[in-house]
């Protein structure tokens, strides 16, 4: 889905772009991708920003805001970002959905799902699960460690 990082032109191949653009037509409400980067960057940082911007370019319902972790400290605190690259997927409000590092490979489809779910404002979970989740009354922080492959 996403090419290796020796590529500098487009990270998303043309045929994939067509498919992604088609999937993103399911979007309902606008989604904003809030991306945090850092000048003195990690090796993946620049590529992650490029990928986020390329995805945003595939739907007019996706907007991107780019901030710098070191310079935009208030914004970083607002989103609870403590490392970069970080990408928040939000609609009118922040639901606490973040991707730290590049959402490539297997995680790329998860990233697209996040955009679609947030756009629809619908988790797609079973009714039972929704009822159980409604009973959670204390903060829960889930950190899911993943790899692109």
């Amino acid at each position: 889905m996403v090419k290796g990082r020796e590529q500098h032109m487009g990270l998303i191949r043309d045929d994939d772009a067509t498919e992604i653009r088609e999937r993103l037509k399911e979007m309902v409400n606008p989604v904003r991708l809030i991306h945090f980067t850092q000048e003195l960057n990690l090796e993946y940082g620049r590529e992650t920003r490029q990928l986020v911007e390329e995805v945003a370019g595939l739907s007019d319902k996706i907007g991107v805001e780019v901030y710098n972790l070191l310079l935009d400290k208030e914004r970083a605190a607002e989103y609870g970002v403590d490392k970069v690259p970080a990408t928040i997927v939000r609609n009118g409000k922040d639901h606490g959905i973040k991707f730290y590092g590049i959402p490539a490979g297997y995680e790329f489809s998860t990233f697209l799902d996040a955009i679609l779910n947030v756009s629809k404002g619908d988790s797609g979970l079973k009714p039972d699960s929704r009822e159980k989740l409604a009973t959670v009354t204390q903060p829960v922080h889930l950190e899911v460690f993943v790899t692109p492959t």
Partner: protein
Amino acid sequence: MRLAQCFALENDLIRADAIEASEFPDLAALYRVYAVPRTVINGEGSIEGSLPEDFFLDAVLKAVTPAADEPGA
């Protein structure tokens, strides 16, 4: 990560971070991530691997429910 972010969308008290382990090796080492996916809950308990919706949700709820307040794996 798919389920975790669905949970976050469902309840504002729940946050879900996908962390690319190879880009954050120190954090991965701190949480003893030897295989992925590994889900760390409130910095303590954890869930190994991918589980179906019901099982994953129950594991998360168990980890955050005071009655089942075990330190986790």
